């Protein structure tokens, strides 16, 4: 196999994901409407055999009503909801991306420190694990008080969720090389830096990408939650809070915001997935079988 064909193969493989995602999303919409058909509200043309409270138009707006909500103005005489949500999504994605980068760098740095120092690992890893048992809802206001409300504090709150998987997977990955590989490096009189850069890091790459995919979705959740105590209204967190409060006057709006939030998370995941496919292309024979 030529190297270029390996890359084409990798990209094609990566494209399979979005395609199956679209199929799945359509199937979900279909199930949604079938439920409404069976237990939803009565119309002129159709009387459902059952009456389920959950299938009411308030609880489960029609898929087309949600779709239409994107085109309607969010507020009277305002821009359409779709545009508002796209702006909010970009805003939140920026925060999430910041959190992702901070978390990835911090997580990897911790893993590198731990792999080189057994004492620090034993001393600090319990705290790293414990940090994840404290709910982010409790941490977020403290971060906002320390750093003041703004883009950075949201990114830090988001990083709180993202560094952990990177540290754990990174530690595992940095330890994954065959002991013989490390002896080989020793026989070359390699510096610790060479061992890290030429053996440990490349060996850890598949583990790190697995963690970065988790971190990508977690960073979006972290950013949305981080917006709430910060009082930031421009992002998806603000939008969700707002449409939640006025749910009665327009149920499809909240659903639209939820869909956009999901799309941001999935999109971020997909970006990491494509980066992984390109970066690990030469190793597909080993990694993907």
């Amino acid at each position, binding site marked *: *196999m030529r*190297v270029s064909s390996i890359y084409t193969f990798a990209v094609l493989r990566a494209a399979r994901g979005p395609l199956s995602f679209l199929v799945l999303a359509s199937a979900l919409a279909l199930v949604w409407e079938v439920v409404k058909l069976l237990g939803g509200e009565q119309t002129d043309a159709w009387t459902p055999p059952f009456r389920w409270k959950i299938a009411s138009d308030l609880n489960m707006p029609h898929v087309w009503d949600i779709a239409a909500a994107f085109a309607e103005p969010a507020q009277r005489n305002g821009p359409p909801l779709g545009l508002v949500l796209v702006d909010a999504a970009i805003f939140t994605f920026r925060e999430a991306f910041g959190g992702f980068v901070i978390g990835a760098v911090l997580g990897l740095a911790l893993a590198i420190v731990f792999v080189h120092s057994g004492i620090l690992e034993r001393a600090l890893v319990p705290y790293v694990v414990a940090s994840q048992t404290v709910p982010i809802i409790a941490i977020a206001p403290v971060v906002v008080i320390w750093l003041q409300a703004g883009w950075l504090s949201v990114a830090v709150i988001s990083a709180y969720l993202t560094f952990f998987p990177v540290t754990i997977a990174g530690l595992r990955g940095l330890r994954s090389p*065959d002991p*013989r*590989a490390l*002896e*080989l490096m*020793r*026989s*070359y*009189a*390699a*510096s610790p830096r*060479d061992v890290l850069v*030429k*053996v440990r890091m*490349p060996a850890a*790459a598949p583990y790190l990408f697995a963690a970065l995919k988790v971190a990508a979705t977690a960073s979006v959740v972290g950013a949305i939650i981080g917006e709430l105590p910060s009082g930031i209204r421009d992002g998806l967190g603000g939008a969700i809070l707002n449409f939640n409060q006025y749910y009665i006057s327009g149920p499809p709006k909240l659903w639209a915001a939820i869909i956009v939030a999901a799309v941001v998370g999935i999109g971020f995941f997909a970006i990491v997935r494509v980066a992984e496919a390109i970066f*690990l292309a*030469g*190793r597909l*024979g*080993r990694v993907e079988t």
Partner: protein
Amino acid sequence: MTGAVVRMRAVQKVFGGGADQTHALDAIDLEIPKGAFVSLIGPSGCGKSTLLRLIGDLTQATGGTIEVNGKSAHRARLDRDYGIVFQSPVLFDWRTVERNVELPLEMSAIDRRARAERARAMLALVELSGSEKRYPWQLSGGMQQRVAIARALSFEPALLLMDEPFGALDEMTRERLNLELLGIWRKTGTTIVFVTHSIPEAVFLSTRVVVMSARPGRIIDVVEVDLPQPRNDLTREDERYFAFVTRVRERLRGGDSAQVAAKTRAAAM
């Protein structure tokens, strides 16, 4: 220059401490002359791999002195005086074949062009020209081990340490690689220390076979194999070759007589 590439005096290696301590190696005196092909053979647990690792400064002796190239084993490692090949090829699957061979050279100041040139030359030496851009997982086990040999030779070291390098390969591949290894040895003039548990392999390859016994690991005999060079497939049918195989086998039996005799009886029945 003649002289010993490896010189070991009263070397001892003890693992663990107190009641649990095991004598992996005891009273090892060994000299390996420049250009020799020396095999270490013995039952498992005789410390032959440990002996190899001591020469490579991958583990430290608990007694005695080890000199490699006239300096301490530690100094020799830092000077990259030896290359090493393990039983598994230990190739890095994110690197192409040529980048695997270049890896040791990346630790030194050799520039990129010279590195690539050296890698090509070494791959030609192990008859893998044309596979430079392939990835390790696209190669057979025998080819992977050849890449490992090319990598070990990339520094053109004075000494090549091999720890059962063909142990995981099938018999046919193994015999072919034995021949190729002899060719490389002749061409490069590298001194080779070769750990094996195969008596025919040890005799076929070596100018000298070091026979060891287990618990504690000791050298019980050194057999000079003066079969004519260059050796080839006909060597394996030579009467004197069989005589040497028998001799090494008897020495091994002497080192662990009860066990070997029992095994021989079992095989005869």
